[in-house]
């Protein structure tokens, strides 16, 4: 992928799709029930403008909001063996994959990109909970390794947004082996002296928390994100008692010393910029209007999220 596909194509698409009237102009906040205008919600990165509840966001929408001018280039991820175990439960694994691809419009559960945030170059990876629960597959492992390698090559920090239920059962032990594999990627970043920052988003559980998602140099979480190793139901059945309010939520983990910060999505970009520039020994980001982008750029930025919303 390059700037043509990421930036020119959305612009062209937006010219042609503009006349379509989106079916769902309003969506309801999962938490407070307020009806939210889709464009307003997209502009606020799927955070309820009324109660601040953080709803899920696709990696592509997240990157569009995160990177300067919504411009980023995807990092290529090596393809793993398809369906290595010929796994079949009630459905065949390849069918589940196809359904997830159709639903999300993405190839797999992780997107890796390079770009700039507040003119600070980074490599970022984001996990897609909408794609088979974000589960850690060989592709996800490859994506993290590719992202780390790219960051090392470009001498940039690596920012990872996690969201997953755990390892992908349909890849069996090979799914589980992404725990050590991704840990190797984290080690490579450490050796290269590059910051590895994890942003835990709702929900991040299981083998994902027990590997790359808990090994960040700085650990940030989005408000109220569910983060834990074991599921609450399993714990309640094991210890036979009710778990306290807010158990395994970001704020609870912060209280127990497991996180550095809990930061709302809309403030993440600036906060990541500050931390990265401090760690990389760079001057503070310029707090002023950035030079005017090329004419087509603002349009691309506005059109992409709206267009996505109208597709749903």
């Amino acid at each position, binding site marked *: 992928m390059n700037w043509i596909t990421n930036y020119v194509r959305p612009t062209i698409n937006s010219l042609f799709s503009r006349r379509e009237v989106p079916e769902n102009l309003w969506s309801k906040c999962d938490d407070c029930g307020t009806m939210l205008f889709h464009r307003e919600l997209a502009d606020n990165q799927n955070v309820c403008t009324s109660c601040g509840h953080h709803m899920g966001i696709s990696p592509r929408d997240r990157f569009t909001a995160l990177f300067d001018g919504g411009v980023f280039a995807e990092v290529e991820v090596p393809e793993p063996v398809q369906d290595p175990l010929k796994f079949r439960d009630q459905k065949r694994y390849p069918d589940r994959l196809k359904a997830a691809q159709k639903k999300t419009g993405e190839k797999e559960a992780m997107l890796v990109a390079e770009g700039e945030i507040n003119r600070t170059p980074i490599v970022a990876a984001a996990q897609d909970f909408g794609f088979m629960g974000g589960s850690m597959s060989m592709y996800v492992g490859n994506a993290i390794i590719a992202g780390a390698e790219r960051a090392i090559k470009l001498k940039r920090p690596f920012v990872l947004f996690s969201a997953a239920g755990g390892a992908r059962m349909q890849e069996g*032990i090979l799914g589980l082996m992404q725990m050590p594999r991704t840990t190797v990627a984290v080690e490579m970043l450490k050796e290269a002296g590059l910051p590895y920052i994890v942003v835990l988003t709702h929900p991040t559980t299981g*083998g994902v928390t027990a590997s790359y*998602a808990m090994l960040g140099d700085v650990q940030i979480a989005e408000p109220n994100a569910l983060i834990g190793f074991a599921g609450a139901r399993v714990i309640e059945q094991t210890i036979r008692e009710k778990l306290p309010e807010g158990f395994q939520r970001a704020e609870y983990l912060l209280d127990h010393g497991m996180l550095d910060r809990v930061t709302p999505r809309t403030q993440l970009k600036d906060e990541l910029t500050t931390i990265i520039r401090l760690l990389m020994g760079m001057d503070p980001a310029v707090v002023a209007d950035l030079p005017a982008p090329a004419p087509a750029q603002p349009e691309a930025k506005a059109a992409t999220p709206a267009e996505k919303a109208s597709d749903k």
Partner: protein
Amino acid sequence: MNYLEFEKPLAEIEGKAEELRAMARSNPEMDVEKEAAALDKKASDLLKDLYRTLTPWRKCQVARHPDRPHCKDYIEALFTEYTPLAGDRNFADDHAVMGGLARFDGKPVMVIGHEKGNDTKSRIERNFGMARPEGYRKSIRLMELADRFGVPIITLVDTPGAYPGKGAEERGQSEAIARSTETCLNVKVPLISVVIGEGGSGGAVAFATANRLAMLEHSIYSVISPEGCASILWKDAEKMREAAEALRLTAQDLNELDICDKIIPEPLGGAHRDKDAAIKSVGGAIRDLLRDLSKMKGKELRDDRRKKYLGLGSKGLAA
């Protein structure tokens, strides 16, 4: 002796033979030896038959067999001067994880493993081999100690999984597992791991990320228990047989996937039928694997581990 569900017919025959012999003991003029011997023969044929082709689910049952030799048995039999080292220096000592310095073939090693316990009291004390964060942090501490003094590490894996508890979560179960895996990858000494029973998900990865991984013939290593997988994907925990099949969790499958480097044969009828033989064959495997690694030094050992894990999954199983 405890019999597994699929061994019921075997239990009947062996029970009958035992009954006959008991009768003969109290009644010396009775000659039952011929009959009993016939039953013995029948039992051993059946045993051979049952264990020739164990289904994945049956392998799970054998791997979890209550009489199977556990970490403690291996440490007592295979190592000398075993000196347990306790505690994570932060919170507690986790009895689900045992570990300490010892000698293997006269040479210093660090041995670490999950211990399940063998009766009600010890099982509770060992928390059924389900470690808490303290267990993983103890293992990190011991691995780092071994690393500083150039002592090879041997881990024995036998856990249903990490403990799902309130305190365990609050004290960072996932972080502890992640750091333990990280430490496994980082040490510059040989690290050999043997799955002696159950390799339960992340709780096992934290110990089993090794230069060489060996598995007992009827041991398993899986992303999730068959019961857990069945209840999620089949929406029915009773479908564990199908799940066990689909997950490819046997030593033989893992060997084919290049995750397991060596399968250690078990005595006929499983490790629990002849503990000494099972323990001896694990000892032999550890010896072979240590010898394999003896040529590598320091950073090479770490690079070997990295290369192994980065390369994993480049091939799948044939259909």
